[in-house]
């Protein structure tokens, strides 16, 4: 049974992405006790799946390493992975959260030596790479994974593979009898930081994500460019592994669209501008990018980045919401059809690869949050007194870039601290 010590002076942080980690660390480094709940086997969230950040083009896992070091050295944070909050009851200063913990089938003995993976035959799609490649069903979620501990996928439990894994482990780290468990913890305040998910590109029918292999999403493109990714950083298109040197980026894929997401997802323009950089990084002057956009939303000093990309002869901009994408069956190229609205020029342009700058929606939409809270029409948590001591942070609260998510999480940490401080006062 998992033991968790928590009181009404504890802050519950839900979600171990950059927002959740930040909220937890900032609160803990201010002397508060935190329970951090992550549904995946490792923390790091979506930013750990990015190759580079805009506008600096630095690497997200660099910041992750710092945050992990902060976490490892901080005794005030209790981390629960493979855990999901299924219910929150109570009120400001006195919440009870129910947490479902699914079995990892690997215990603390694991040294991450990898012998179990060698022993197991079964392969499963690698979620860290959005299923772009496969991995063993006994796996370390990624090279930066914390806890640095393997996982047995439940699909092999009860199969010979599971026994092979168990047999291969010299450290008695594999426990096939692990059961799902449910724990209840107290908390004075809740920071909800479950982040975002890419809008389901299958729903954007004219772009044929469900029909054409070489139409992919912006998050998948991050994995293609990442040395840790399925192609070790080579930008190869899915249909035939050909080097994708002529890449199209379709902005507002799902965003600013009443048939899909009504809001603007804020990050997509900068993300695509950044990704044109990946293309050039790999293929130099042979790497051409075209951005199809409605408005380029490069706010504040991001404008510099936009200006730099605009000045790059290898990148062209077309002010147009692409009407539809077709495929040339012979070459596998994707053809973008539409009209450049600046002066009305019709185009039907072939590209090696088409990247949909998919919109951002809350991973857990307001209505699905297991607590009485107020969310906006897109499902983002509103900052509203009605929510008591339940505070949204990061992309659970708005469509935000990393920088603003961290601000939001830091602010949320303070709001939570205000509550537990009041509880503490009352209790002495």
């Amino acid at each position, binding site marked *: 049974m998992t033991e968790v010590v928590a009181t009404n002076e504890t802050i519950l942080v839900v979600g171990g992405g950059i927002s959740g980690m930040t909220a937890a660390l900032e609160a803990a480094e201010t002397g508060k006790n935190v329970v951090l709940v992550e549904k995946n086997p490792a923390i790091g969230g979506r930013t750990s799946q990015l190759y580079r950040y805009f506008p600096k083009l630095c690497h997200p896992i660099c910041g992750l390493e710092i945050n992990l070091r902060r976490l490892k050295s901080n005794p005030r944070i209790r981390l629960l992975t493979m855990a999901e909050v299924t219910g929150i009851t109570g009120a400001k200063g006195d919440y009870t959260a129910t947490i479902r913990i699914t079995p990892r089938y690997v215990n603390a003995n694991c040294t991450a030596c990898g012998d179990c993976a060698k022993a197991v035959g079964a392969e499963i799609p690698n979620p860290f790479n959005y299923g772009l490649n496969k991995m063993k069903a006994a796996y370390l979620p990624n090279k930066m994974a914390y806890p640095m501990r393997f996982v047995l996928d439940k699909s092999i439990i009860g199969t010979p593979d599971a026994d092979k894994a168990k047999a291969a482990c010299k450290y008695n780290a594999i426990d096939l009898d692990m059961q799902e468990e449910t724990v209840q913890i107290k908390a004075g305040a809740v920071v909800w930081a479950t982040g975002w998910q890419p809008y389901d590109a299958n729903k954007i029918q004219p772009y044929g994500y469900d029909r054409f292999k070489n139409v992919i999403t912006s998050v998948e493109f991050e994995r293609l460019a990442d040395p840790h990714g399925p192609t070790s950083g080579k930008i190869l298109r899915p249909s035939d592994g050909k080097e994708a040197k002529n890449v199209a980026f379709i902005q507002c894929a799902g965003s600013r669209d009443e048939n899909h997401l009504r809001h603007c997802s804020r990050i997509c323009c900068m993300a695509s501008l950044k990704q044109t950089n990946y293309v050039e990084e790999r293929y130099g002057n042979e790497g051409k990018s075209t951005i199809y956009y409605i408005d380029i939303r490069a706010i504040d000093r991001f404008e510099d980045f936009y200006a730099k990309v605009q000045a790059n002869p290898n990148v062209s901009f077309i*002010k147009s919401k692409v*009407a539809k994408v077709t495929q040339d069956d012979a070459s596998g190229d994707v053809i973008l059809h*539409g009209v450049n609205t600046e002066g009305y020029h*019709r185009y039907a342009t072939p590209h090696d690869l088409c990247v949909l700058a998919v919109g951002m929606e809350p991973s857990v939409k307001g209505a699905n949050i297991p607590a009485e809270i107020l969310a906006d029409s897109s499902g983002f948590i509103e900052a509203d007194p009605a929510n008591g001591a339940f505070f949204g942070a990061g992309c659970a609260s708005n469509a935000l870039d990393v920088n603003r998510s961290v601000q939001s999480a830091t602010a949320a940490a303070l709001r939570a601290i205000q509550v537990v401080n009041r509880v503490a006062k009352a209790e002495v």
Partner: protein
Amino acid sequence: MSNLSSQAAAQYNNNFLKEVEAMVEEGNWVKMCMQCGVCSGSCPTNFQAGWDHPPQEIFMMIRAGKREEVLNSQSMWMCTSCYNCIVRCPRKLPITHIMHGLANYAHRLGLAPKNQPTRHFAKLFWNNCIQTGRVNELKLSLGLYFKDGFKQGIINGLAMKDVALGLLKAKRLNPFELFKAHGCKDQKGIHAMLKKAHEIEERRKAIKTA
């Protein structure tokens, strides 16, 4: 103020937009366009000759007060009613209907291009269908061929004779339609009903513009 500068002054003020909102079917949607251009790219005919302004551009021209250019435009008459623009518009503008509405308005004002074939056909079609309450395909086609006079009509007809013969053989075109046509029984009622409908529509428009 000289005529020219008054012309210029009309540019980019909202008068024509307001006119369209009042007088054109679904015209009050024009202001909602955000100029993404997905409609233009989705239109099946807009790459063909004669098509001068795609929908999104028409909407911009309306907002820019370019009354004559819009109402004289061929564009609205190029609409095949395929509804691609409607289903893709991120602002859910009923673009097809706005284009139809503009065509209808330009037609009523007599500003639509003369001899615009679709304009002519649409008129024929309507008259043909309300005459008996049902469309008479033979008269409709003949009417179309003869729009530019008898001689041209024969030429057009001959050009289409294979089509016609094919349909005749397949019993899908009935020569006797010329004499004994399909039709509704209560044609009197239909005519009265439509007359009334036109009255009401005029009444409404009058109120809007008043």
